[in-house]
């Protein structure tokens, strides 16, 4: 760098970096430190126990169950959210008829964009509380109420939604119902992300393809999808993080926060229980650190796998 630039840049960055170190990096380091102790969380008494907490983690059945539930979300949340977001973005940008003005989205696409993006404006807890009313399991619930009125659901046996542990395709029903909310609330943002990426794809590529007789399906799979690869890859990583969290939905919506009978237990809910109910902060910190390591490895692996030559336009 040229002389003086380094000092100039440092001058600007010193304060934010210091704040970041103090408020973000330092608590991380502390948590990692606590994970090697038997700290209970309410006192200043703690003993160093080495890696005991991590060894215990490996044989903890509840954590194992929670891990697989997180893996379920890790696979399904990105898959369904990206699929839905791509579908919507495609329709809104290039899905409509073509005319002299070129390729455009379906009629009213500006309006739909706002509608689909709307959940992104709401806090996840607000979304969860709203869906509690939609999922309410008697005739005052939005879905149950309608279905009971039209006679599709028996009033004596309404849909239990998030209180239903019965497996569907081997996965407790409650997780599927939570997945629906996660996808609904996430799709809008990624739709906008993909829309922006699609708009940077030159229209003449589409027009050329259509002139050559390509169908909508062809243009999507042969042009749009390959050119969005980078964006989708990043979306996948972000959605992976969301899938590893899911805490707000589980906490607000499921009986006994992770129930019924552990059917919707996830990493974060077990961690919360261990730290704040059982008073084993050391062990809970070990869970947090383990999850952080898992997340970092996952992101690194994912970005490496999708790395390849790219097209510039």
């Amino acid at each position, binding site marked *: 760098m040229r002389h003086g630039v380094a000092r100039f840049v440092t001058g600007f960055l010193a304060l934010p970096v210091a704040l970041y170190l103090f408020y*973000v990096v330092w*608590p*991380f380091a*502390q948590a*990692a430190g*606590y994970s090697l102790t*038997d700290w*209970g969380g*309410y*006192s*200043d*008494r703690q003993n160093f126990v080495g890696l005991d907490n991590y060894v215990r983690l490996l044989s903890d059945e509840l954590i194992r169950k929670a891990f697989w539930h997180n893996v379920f979300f890790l696979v399904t949340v990105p898959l369904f959210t990206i699929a839905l977001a791509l579908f919507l973005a495609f329709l809104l940008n290039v899905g409509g008829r073509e005319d002299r003005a070129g390729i455009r989205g379906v009629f009213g696409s500006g309006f739909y964009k706002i509608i689909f993006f709307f959940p992104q404006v709401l806090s996840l807890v607000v979304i969860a509380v709203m869906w509690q009313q939609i999922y*309410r*399991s*008697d*005739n*005052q619930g939005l879905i*149950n109420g309608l279905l009971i009125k039209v006679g599709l659901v028996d*009033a*004596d046996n309404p849909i*239990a*939604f998030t*209180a239903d*542990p019965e497996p569907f395709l081997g996965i407790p029903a409650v997780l599927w119902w939570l997945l629906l909310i996660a996808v609904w609330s996430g799709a809008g943002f990624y739709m906008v992300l993909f829309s922006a990426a699609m708009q940077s794809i030159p229209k003449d590529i589409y027009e050329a393809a259509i002139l050559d007789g390509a169908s909508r399906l062809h243009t999507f799979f042969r042009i749009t999808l390959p050119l969005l690869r*980078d*964006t989708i*890859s*990043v979306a996948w*990583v*972000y959605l992976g*993080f*969301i899938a*590893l*969290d899911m*805490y707000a939905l589980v906490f607000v919506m499921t*009986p*006994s926060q992770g*129930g*019924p*009978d552990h059917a919707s237990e996830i990493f974060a809910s077990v961690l919360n*229980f261990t*730290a*704040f*109910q059982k*008073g*084993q*902060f050391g062990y809970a*910190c070990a*869970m*947090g*650190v383990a*999850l*952080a390591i*898992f997340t*970092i490895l996952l*992101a690194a692996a994912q*970005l490496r796998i999708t790395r390849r030559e*790219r*097209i*510039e336009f």
Partner: protein
Amino acid sequence: MADTNPADLNRRTLLRRAAAAGLLVTPAAGLLSACAGSEPSKSTDTGGSKSADNPFGVKDDSAVKVVIFNGGLGDQWAKEDQAVFTAKHPKVTVNMSSTQKIKTEEQPKMATQPSDLVMNSGADMMDISTLVNEGAIEPLDDLLKAPAWDSEGTVADSLLPGTVEDGTFQDKFYVVNVAFTVWGNWYNGALFDKEGWQPPKTFDDFFALAPKIKAKGIAPYVHDAVHGYYPRWALMATIWKSAGKQAVVDIDNLKENAWKADGVLPALQAWEKLVKDKLLLPGNLNHTQSQQAWLDGKAAFIQVGTWLKNEMAATIPPGFEMKLSDYWGLGASDKAPDDVFAGAGEGLVVPSKAPNKAAAKEFLRAVLSKAGSAKYAELTKSLASTKGSGDNVQDSALTTANELMKNAPKTLIKTKFWDFYADLDKESQNLSEELMAGRITAQQFVDKMQAAADKVAKDSSIQKQTRTA
């Protein structure tokens, strides 16, 4: 084109870096920093001079920080207590705040700069056995020995039976429970009078009455299917009545095969029958939804504590007569048919590191005063743990609760294992939900609870507690 010039920040690397940066604002990050604490500071507790009127030596011009749980009972009663306190100590500043997030707001401060007096209550409360084990809260035995605020004798003398026991852990008194709660089955007195129904005393009475209730298009029973500790009260009360006190004490003490004792299984089977016979209102309602369904006349009985009246005050229909009856027993085989499920709850604690512990204890004395507790009963329509708090309140809910207490034997139904062990707390809540949802049988409930209790008994990392009375 490949990345030919590594110095250029192209879109690909930008996205990759953005993703990497995203790592630091993601779930793992939030969870990580949630555990972090900070270094403790020293408490500076220098008292003023002590006297009969100021037994803890509260210093003038000091300040006391009081945090109240603003739940079903509201927080107005605490403001009345503050007035009682300030009348005697006008120079002490009381900083009172109220919240529903006790643990979220107070736990991080416990090891460093806690409030002086914390009402540890609600869904977001700090685990009491952890607080005791970690030495995070102060024993308050000197408060019990101090003279009562505005009556003869000591503070201990002025309390309802059970209040001292309920606040005692490992032989020391830690928790001042201000509310005296009576649990049982609630019904609408007006409806029962109109139909000529008698509130049942046993499950057999109930099963005989149920068809008549159903014939009127009313579900015989509604329960909270979201919070497992609601149905658990009822299950444990039935177990106590059927199997007797010693059986529950054994359960609390993790005695071998305690859940398999005589009388435990039949008690749970009564509930299993209630579920199997479809006597529950359909739907998985939470506490307020189920209580509203009961108020709306959709169900005849609901089981909950005496805070019910205050919690639902805004939506009680005109002409509705809230009445409390005792939990049902099984009949002739019952070992303790008349014992009532009641106790002191809504606990106030003084953190060990609180800067002004003297004023906190003095404030507690004001809370337990005759004047303060009478205001409490008047405002919340439920009993305070000070004797005679409800004497001058006219209210069907409070009166029936009062009567129930007057006719009750001195032994109160009490379960401790869920306060002792977080694992058993969780398991029993889950299993109570499962039993009430009809997904497990009474036999499975007993087997699974026994397995969970055995697991805790064997786990050396869990500190054991015992109950004698």
